[in-house]
């Protein structure tokens, strides 16, 4: 088994608002190994992006706060680092790609300068070495004619190319962990396929650990080795991708997979999960999925289910699974 790059233990992140505490992430644990892609899948508001931002320690302030747990990256608990020490990690050891490339790039700087920014900050290279480094970062993301592209502005690039530039910035310092938060959602499907193939390529070259946040099972099926399914601030099931699709155990995972229309089969009627996820300010005392669950037991209403390991790398939090 290869080395563990990231270990998240019992992470709790809350937002403190005038209306009360919003428990966005409520006891999440998982680990990612070297060269592995771990997917986090869930609907909006389930806490998947907040988990990513917590690892980056980029929660919006004031309000967002990590209230408990450990985030161990390469043997170091990130939550014990000072703000200054964290800055040396961010971009160098752990970096992030966000959904919308137009808002993560600065429209008034040439893309080469935007990549050079992190190269200069983290690598301490002599000035004449910066540009070759920038060009090699663009090459890694297979951007054609990088020598020309570095002088262009984001508006001159297409959506797919912009997202590759964002990827180049993230990969420019060869991080150990890459957090990709819905990086393909804003892209067209044929461009999406290109971008995903690119991730596999990068991983083969650099052995980076990738945490892939998405709501799209199609993307998950293609790129992830293991998947964690999140619901209302908790990971309800973690398993290898194949098992998630072939033998899902948690009723939410089962329902979610069934409610996605499939290209290879024609359904007359789609399975749908009735109701909506609970408010994170007013969570049910028992299992969070209980109000929408069709197979709920009495115990589900009162007590939170423990995490049950059904095999080495498949665990489920559900009272029905023993």
């Amino acid at each position, binding site marked *: 088994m290869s080395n563990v790059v990231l270990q998240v233990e019992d992470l709790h992140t809350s937002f403190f608002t005038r209306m009360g505490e919003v428990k966005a992430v409520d006891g999440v644990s998982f680990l990612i190994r070297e060269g592995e892609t771990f997917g986090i899948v869930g609907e909006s508001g389930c806490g998947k992006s907040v988990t990513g931002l917590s690892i980056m320690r980029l929660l919006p302030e004031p309000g967002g706060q990590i209230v408990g747990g450990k985030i161990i990256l390469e043997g170091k608990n990130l939550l014990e680092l000072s703000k200054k020490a964290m800055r040396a990690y961010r971009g160098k050891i752990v970096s992030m790609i966000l959904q919308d490339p137009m808002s993560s790039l600065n429209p008034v700087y040439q893309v080469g300068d935007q990549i050079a920014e992190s190269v200069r900050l983290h690598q301490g290279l002599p000035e004449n070495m910066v540009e070759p480094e920038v060009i090699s970062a663009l090459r890694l993301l297979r951007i054609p004619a990088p020598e020309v592209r570095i002088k262009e502005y984001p508006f001159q690039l297409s959506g797919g190319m912009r997202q590759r530039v964002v990827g180049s910035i993230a990969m420019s310092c060869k991080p150990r962990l890459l957090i990709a938060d819905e990086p393909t959602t804003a892209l067209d499907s044929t461009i999406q396929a290109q971008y995903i193939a690119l991730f596999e390529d990068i991983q083969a070259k650099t052995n980076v650990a990738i945490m892939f946040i998405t709501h799209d099972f199609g993307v998950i099926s293609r790129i992830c080795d293991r998947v964690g399914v999140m619901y209302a601030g908790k990971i309800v099931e973690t398993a290898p*991708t194949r098992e998630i699709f072939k033998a899902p155990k948690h009723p939410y995972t089962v329902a979610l997979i069934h409610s996605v229309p499939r290209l290879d089969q024609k359904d007359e009627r789609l399975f749908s999960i009735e109701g909506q996820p609970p408010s994170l300010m007013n969570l049910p005392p028992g299992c969070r999925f209980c109000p929408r669950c069709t197979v709920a037991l009495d115990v589900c209403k009162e007590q939170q289910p423990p995490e049950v390991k059904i095999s080495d790398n498949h665990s489920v939090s559900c009272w029905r699974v023993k």
Partner: protein
Amino acid sequence: MAEVLLEARDIVKHYPVTRGLLQRTVGWVRAVDGVSFTVEQGKTFSLVGESGAGKTTIAKAILLLERLTSGNILFEGKDVYKFSAAQLKTGYRPKVQSVQQNPWSSMNPRMRVRDIVGEPLFVNTKQPKKEVYDNVSKLLDQVGIGAEGMTRYPHEFSGGQRQRIAVARALALHPNLLVLDEPVSALDVSIRAQIMNLLKDLQTQFNLSYIVIAHNLATVRYMSHGVAIMYLGQLVEYGDTEELFKNPLHPYTRALISASQLTLPEDAKDGAKQIILTGEMPSPLNPPPGCRFHTRCAEAGELCSKEIPDMRQVGKNYVKCHHYK
């Protein structure tokens, strides 16, 4: 065969590109370039394509929000461009309604739900307020919101519920045709299924026709009877949905299907290999000569870059590709 409700005949929409102080026209964006299709009564017709393919321009043209450069739109056999203003107001606009993609921007946040859904009735009928509100409460029941939502504001509802409200508003005037522009793509996975099921139920209940604009093929397969695949302002393949997914003809269709399949890597190995297209869609300002797809097509030959292929019938469906003769 069901009756044809709407027909688009060779529709073209070019937008001028202007430059300089005098706003001289220096070029044309060929957003839609010669598209024909029919929508049958009680059926769903889907337009599929990537951004920039021209699908939304077609939707706007049908809703008469854009005037075509050339071509005709026939509604119940009559050319809508020959309708007088009064005929449009009574005979076309109320019968063709739309639901937009984003339920957060398609309603006025300061209006109550009963006024949002009731607005088409206030504008188009002389019903007194009380009667309008009665109708609104029935409409809200039909879409699964319930009359207790009447006096609430849009922000009090979730995305899925808002999309239901948008559907209620579109149904207020008893239309024949709904233009649904990406009706579920802004919603969460578990909510999408609810809305798609609702739309299907309403279709059977009221014998509605839908034009669905989408980029997600699985959604399209689930929703539609007929489908057209668009690329750079033109249809590349057109016909029956089931047939198209079983026997995709055009290389672009095959690439799109491959890109949206839920395939596990292990399963893919023994079956179909994933097709990954190289490059990006060229600019509609300056479309390539010959077949518009040839710059990205792995199967393109010499002829493809020279001659524009015709739409040909192959089996049950139609395709625009030189490989079928």
